């Protein structure tokens, strides 16, 4: 059942006016139609905000030795500090305020995830677009590599790389980019191939427009929707993967305490019932990933061409 604008120019040209909406505004209003997605998006903004302004919000700088007292270690949530503020989420084994440590950890987790996600997206989509554009042997070669890589789980490839390279922020970013670029390449290429075969591309070529113009002005904008969905999913993956690797002790070094490391550090206190040291950083990680995934889920629905009216 089509419910699109059905007026005729010869009869009522002005009747269309009420339905005028640019694709972007339509997209925005569709997106916020779901309250779950709206809440998730707000939550994600709060998390990003907390991470960005961690030094201003957190009661203590957990990595300034002058502010941390070992005597205050492993205090349960709600305990008072000597300085007079409350340890909202308790303290860890070294006496750091967990709430502050989580905010600082979020900074690291988010930046590692997002930065490597962006690099992977740039590399992956250029490669994918190149494949779709060149076709033939270049495409076959690129897609073979992509298929090869995608047939192995991300964590395995990351472990392989880290086993060779060792720990470090740069190392883990290399690992994350290596793991992720192939997803972007595959998505962009497959969408571009579909778009390339549509009649509007034939029409553009018939109109004598240059290859470059057709590629960047006609095909690329139509590949953005699936790309955006993959960006959200992959960013969530990257954050989770970094946390996992750091937890396993092969990711970030102790000097860069991301959420994964915080959880790992709390592991040893778990069996003695001091749950909060692992629990709260885990919740922070979970909320970050859930909010991104929920946003991605709604994006998938809103941008799905098959569901579009």
């Amino acid at each position, binding site marked *: 059942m*089509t419910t*699109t*604008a*059905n*007026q*005729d*120019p*010869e009869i009522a*040209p*002005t009747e*269309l006016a009420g*339905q*005028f909406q*640019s*694709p972007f505004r339509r997209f925005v209003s569709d997106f916020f139609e779901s309250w779950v997605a709206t809440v998730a998006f707000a939550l994600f903004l709060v998390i990003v905000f907390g991470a960005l302004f961690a030094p201003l919000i957190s009661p203590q700088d957990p990595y300034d030795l002058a502010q941390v007292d070992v005597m205050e270690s492993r205090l349960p949530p709600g305990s008072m500090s000597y300085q007079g503020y409350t340890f909202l989420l308790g303290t860890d084994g070294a006496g750091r305020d967990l709430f502050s440590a989580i905010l600082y950890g979020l900074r690291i987790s988010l930046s590692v995830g997002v930065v490597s996600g962006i690099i992977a997206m740039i590399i992956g989509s250029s490669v994918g677009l190149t494949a779709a554009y060149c076709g033939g042997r270049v495409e076959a070669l690129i897609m073979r590599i992509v298929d090869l890589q995608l047939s192995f789980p991300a964590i395995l490839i990351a472990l392989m790389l880290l086993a060779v390279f060792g720990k470090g922020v740069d190392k883990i970013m290399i690992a994350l980019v290596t793991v992720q670029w192939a997803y972007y390449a595959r998505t962009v290429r497959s969408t571009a191939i579909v778009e390339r075969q*549509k*009649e*509007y591309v*034939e*029409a*553009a*070529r*018939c*109109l*004598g*427009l240059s290859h470059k*113009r057709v590629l960047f*002005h*006609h095909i690329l*904008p*139509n590949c953005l929707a699936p790309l955006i969905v993959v960006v959200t999913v992959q960013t969530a993956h990257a954050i989770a993967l970094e946390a996992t690797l750091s937890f396993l002790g092969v990711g970030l070094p102790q000097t860069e305490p991301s959420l994964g490391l915080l959880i790992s550090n709390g592991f040893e206190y778990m069996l003695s019932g001091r749950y909060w040291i692992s629990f709260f950083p885990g919740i922070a990680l979970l909320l970050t990933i859930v909010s991104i995934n929920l946003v991605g889920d709604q994006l998938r629905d809103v941008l799905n061409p098959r569901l*579009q*009216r």
Partner: protein
Amino acid sequence: MTAMIETHDLSKDFVKKLDFAGKIATHLGADLHEQVVRAVDRVHLGVEKGEVVGLVGESGCGKSTLGRMVAGILAPTLGHVLFNGEDYAELSGPQARRAQLAVQMIFQDPYASLNPRHRVETIVGEAPLVHGLASKSGLADYVDDILKRVGLDPECKRRYPHQFSGGQRQRLGIARALAVKPDFLVCDEAIAALDVSIQAQVLNLFMDLREEFDLTYLFISHDLSVVEHISDRVVIMYLGRVVEVAPTEVLFEQPNHPYAAALLAEIPRLDQRKRQFKPIEGEIPSPIHPPSGCHFHPRCPHAFARCQSEVPALQKIAPGRYAACHLNDEPTPKNE
């Protein structure tokens, strides 16, 4: 006088090559072959200036492929397309561009043929601006003018395609083509996807524009009544080959080729009531494995031995009429 568009021996093959593994498999005895589909097979076609030529055939007959080669979107495997006597393949620079713009195409699917991310003004105005047919300052007026001529309100030019109905979108597609001042339009099933009442509107528009812009059409359709209505001459294709070419009235009066005859007998017509449908037997063969000789022989009620072995040539049977059927060479009359 040279025709505006001519094709000489025009052929298009679509090849699905065997990969390395396939080659090994054939060595091991598997029955695999490189698949070559000859979608268009040595087609000679001429369209005079001002003429409307209808191209008719059922699915898989290669009519769309032929149309795309004429429009310069697909490169032929063999043969040539000539525009005003000049070969597409030999043109370059401004001449090539001129030829490219002079032949435009109207597509079947009013949804897929418009870029969903572009506004109407971009869809219609992009090419004229790129090719310098309109100046940046004059573009708005240029686009308005064209929209009016295809029956669209210029007010709507800030809109996106999804805000239009199928018929309006097809008008947009026509406006986009007209914007580069073409001489020749290839209409590929241009009204097939539209509702009956909208079909009539667009068909009328095509006829009006023909007068107004002095256009020449290659009108591709599977719908014989539509082709009969608009065309001066009709070309009938079957499995990649032209089987008959004739002026419309003559063809519909008395088709020569048995396939043409069958096709004409089977179109449902408004003025034929409660009829007993007596279809020709058999399916349309796959273009991958077309029958030998005359492609139509397995379904043809008049087929004889020669039809299985020898491809009938398209030959002149009367002034302006051509057919590819061995029956025309036989002294014996058709056994009706």
